[in-house]
């Protein structure tokens, strides 16, 4: 069974600074997907960034980038130039590839989250 671990329950960063959120996972699969989701107080889970395990290049989305270390089963999120709107709960999640037959997407397995507070 796959597990996702986020060891930082809370973090704080000053506006415009850089912060890194940690995530480790355990799986015997060779191909899979990893995600970072953001959940602000509005409750809606918003996709921040996605990484495919077979791609060696780290994913980047504007101010958000990941450090994917497949051998170490580590998947950290770096937020550059932090903004007040980045204040939220951040969840790391794992997904196996879609089924070959039927096309159904697999389930997400989430970590327990890291509460990030951006201070003015």
């Amino acid at each position, binding site marked *: 069974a796959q597990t996702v671990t986020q060891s930082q329950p809370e973090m704080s960063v000053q506006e415009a600074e850089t912060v890194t959120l940690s995530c480790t996972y355990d799986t015997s699969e060779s191909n899979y997907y990893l995600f970072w989701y953001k959940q602000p107080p509005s409750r809606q889970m918003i996709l921040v960034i996605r990484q495919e395990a077979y791609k060696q290049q780290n994913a980047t989305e504007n101010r958000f980038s990941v450090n994917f270390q497949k051998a170490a089963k580590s998947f950290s999120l770096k937020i550059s130039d932090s903004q007040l709107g980045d204040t939220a709960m951040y969840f790391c999640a794992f997904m196996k590839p879609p089924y070959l037959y*039927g096309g159904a997407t697999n389930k997400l397995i989430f970590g327990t989250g890291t509460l990030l507070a951006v201070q003015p």
Partner: protein
Amino acid sequence: DAGVTQSPTHLIKTRGQQVTLRCSPKSGHDTVSWYQQALGQGPQFIFQYYEEEERQRGNFPDRFSGHQFPNYSSELNVNALLLGDSALYLCASSPTGIAEAFFGQGTRLTVV
């Protein structure tokens, strides 16, 4: 594109009652998954529907059941409500064969 929509946004029920939550997936998405998120925790997978059938199920009792309609919308039913069922229920939709999931704003269920 309206995205994933869930109704209602908030609900208060009494122990022992039954509840139905509804989800309309993002346009073009045919897979719907339901998650339960207890306060301060990460979402836990309940089940997933694809082609109107339950395809995967998490570690939840039979009191939790669901349905998917031909237009891909879905319902989550919970019978014999317990206090411990109080949580945020999230619906996520995905397109065929694509490893992505888009979430609705959730339904906050309180059981008293």
